[in-house]
């Protein structure tokens, strides 16, 4: 069967609200701008030093020599800080109407009404809206934007902040450490199980503005939490940079799942560092769906530090015209009897490029550890590209590491079968693709799963003439 050209639909959330931010930093990055951010946030010496130190590291570090093309980023042409309102607000009524309007368009209120426990919605650089159900507070769960958390719980904050991902880790972690703003801070006390997923929507709205949120999650012994982060951003005319840092502590026997649905508009560079430290008997999971952005480089990782720790990464990537999704995951076995699993599904069409890049490492002494990586890729036309770059470093003989990957197109036989049952070609293709990604979609909360299926359908719509 001849290959078909799929039409990339117009960006679904292609609207842009007028920019009415109350403060924006000058373009570019310098010690003055970083200290201006500190002034505005009324930060103490500790954080000022942390930012300035990180800035120095950032200017020293080189760009990664591998991976996607990042030459389009002009660091001096970016606003590093924009503040929309003055204080983090508590109730939905206090949220300015124009911001509500933007959220309306991406359906936040519906999500809010449903099964959500708390919503931290990030508009521009700072979290302006946080709602927490009373029972969460009663349980002792702290769910704040990261800036407020630093002011209210400085001791707890300093103990964990920047420890898993220090500024020296990579250039973009250093950048985030220097200019970070907003993000979520969650502390779940011992034995507390948060049943409903907590979520935050992240948005960028001012043209030429970077978003550098910083998220820190601490799940104390025996606790449980599921955090959902969804991104949808309006379309701009110039390139934008999103560079977040997410640090997660999974203590003994705790369980954390971090779900991301990334749907930045197709001019955003999305360069994110995400890492999880899993202690004895803990279970850390990343569910990572990448649909939007121009370039994404993101490899959530699990460091399995205690005996019996488990790590799982589910990664899904879709690349359309002009997109490069360089995603994957890392599992590092540092203790005995640890298990890891990475499942990656990627789809490329209309000249898009998806790459799986991952690492499995077993350190000496990680006896009886097991890991398995499965990567499947679908190529929908001959302009597109799919790559797989897994790396396995095995320093402990008493371990079992497996990797497998396949790349294929939609089978003619599969299509023929479905069409013989009365489906149109388009319906059949959509069904096959939905089936292909279902191992990941079924792990998403219901409203996200619906959104995902809608998005896939949208991509396929009108694709066959």
């Amino acid at each position: 069967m001849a290959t078909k050209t799929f039409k990339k639909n117009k960006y679904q959330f292609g609207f842009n609200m007028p920019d009415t931010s109350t403060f924006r930093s000058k373009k570019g990055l310098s010690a003055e701008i970083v200290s201006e951010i500190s002034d505005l946030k009324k930060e103490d010496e500790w954080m000022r030093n942390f930012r300035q130190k990180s800035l120095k590291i950032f200017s020293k570090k080189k760009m990664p020599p591998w991976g996607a093309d990042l030459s389009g980023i002009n660091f001096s042409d970016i606003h590093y800080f924009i503040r929309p309102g003055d204080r983090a607000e508590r109730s939905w009524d206090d949220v300015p109407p124009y911001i509500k309007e933007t959220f309306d368009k991406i359906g936040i209120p519906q999500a809010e009404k449903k099964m959500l426990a708390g919503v931290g919605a990030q508009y521009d650089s700072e979290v302006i809206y946080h709602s927490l159900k009373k029972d969460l507070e009663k349980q002792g769960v702290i769910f704040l934007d990261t800036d407020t958390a630093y002011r209210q719980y400085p001791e707890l904050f300093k103990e964990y902040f920047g420890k898993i991902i220090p500024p020296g880790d990579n250039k973009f972690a250093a950048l985030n450490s220097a200019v970070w703003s907003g993000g979520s801070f969650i502390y779940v006390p011992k034995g507390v199980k948060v049943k409903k997923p907590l979520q935050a929507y992240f948005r960028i709205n001012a043209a030429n503005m970077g978003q550098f949120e910083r998220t820190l999650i601490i799940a104390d012994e025996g606790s449980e939490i599921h955090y959902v982060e969804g991104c949808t951003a309006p379309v701009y005319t110039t390139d934008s940079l999103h560079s977040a840092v997410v640090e997660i502590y999974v203590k003994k026997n705790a369980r954390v799942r971090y779900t991301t649905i990334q749907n930045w508009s197709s001019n955003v560079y999305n360069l994110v560092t995400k890492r999880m430290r899993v202690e004895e008997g803990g279970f850390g999971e990343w569910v990572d769906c990448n649909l939007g952005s121009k370039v994404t480089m993101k490899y959530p990782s699990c460091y399995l530090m205690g005996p019996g720790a488990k790590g799982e990464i589910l990664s899904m990537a879709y690349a359309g015209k002009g997109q490069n999704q360089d995603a994957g995951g890392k599992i590092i076995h540092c203790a005995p009897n640890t298990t890891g699993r990475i499942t990656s599904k990627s789809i490329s069409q209309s000249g898009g490029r998806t790459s799986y890049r991952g690492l499995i490492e077993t350190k000496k002494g990680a006896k009886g550890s097991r890991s398995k990586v499965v990567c499947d890729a679908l190529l929908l036309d001959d302009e597109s590209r799919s790559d797989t770059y897994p790396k396995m470093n095995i320093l402990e003989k008493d371990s079992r590491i497996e990797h497998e990957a396949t790349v294929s197109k939609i089978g003619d036989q599969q299509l023929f079968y479905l069409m013989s049952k009365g489906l149109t070609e388009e319906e059949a293709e959509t069904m096959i693709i939905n089936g292909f990604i279902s191992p990941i979609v079924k792990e998403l909360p219901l409203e996200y799963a619906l959104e995902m299926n809608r998005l896939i359908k949208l991509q396929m719509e009108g694709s066959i003439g």
Partner: protein
Amino acid sequence: MTKTIYIDKGKKKLNILVEDSLTCLIVGTGSGEKEITFELKKKGANLKVLGLFLLGNGEIKLRTIQKHLARNTVSDLKIKSVLFDQGKFDYLGRVNIFESGQQSNAYQQNDNLLLGDGEVETTPELEILADDVKCSHGSTTSQLNERDLFYLKTRGLDQNEAKKLFVQGFLATITDKIDNIKITKEIELCLKKLLKPKI
């Protein structure tokens, strides 16, 4: 046509043109380094690569690149390594299917067996630019299975015999396909040497 390459002999970088059908055997029983590029340039070209590495100590560094440049080309690569002592096996295998390589099939399999305190670094890569292809790769690294060993011992084999049988079984998918008696003998000799119990 069959071609044999020793990891420790000859040039470090090799470029092999595959025109119709080729079986390539890569053997290593000691330290060495090689980068081998296979170019499948003619329509219908067929490549089979078999790699067998036995290492006590030292380091083997191997790079293989399967380049599919023409339509209907097939490549099948199987690399197995057994590390007995503190040896290190560093392998990078890449499959490139170019736009001109529609309807190609490419397979890559790398299995490693760790018997001592060795290290394995394996990076199987796929770079696919054509859509009408079948391509897969797999990699496993494991140790001697205690249960299997126990089973063999209950049948009257001693530790060393059981180990030998296990390693032979692991390598069988490669060794069965080698029809060069000289090489088969060399491999057997090497196995015997490496499996000798330490005093």
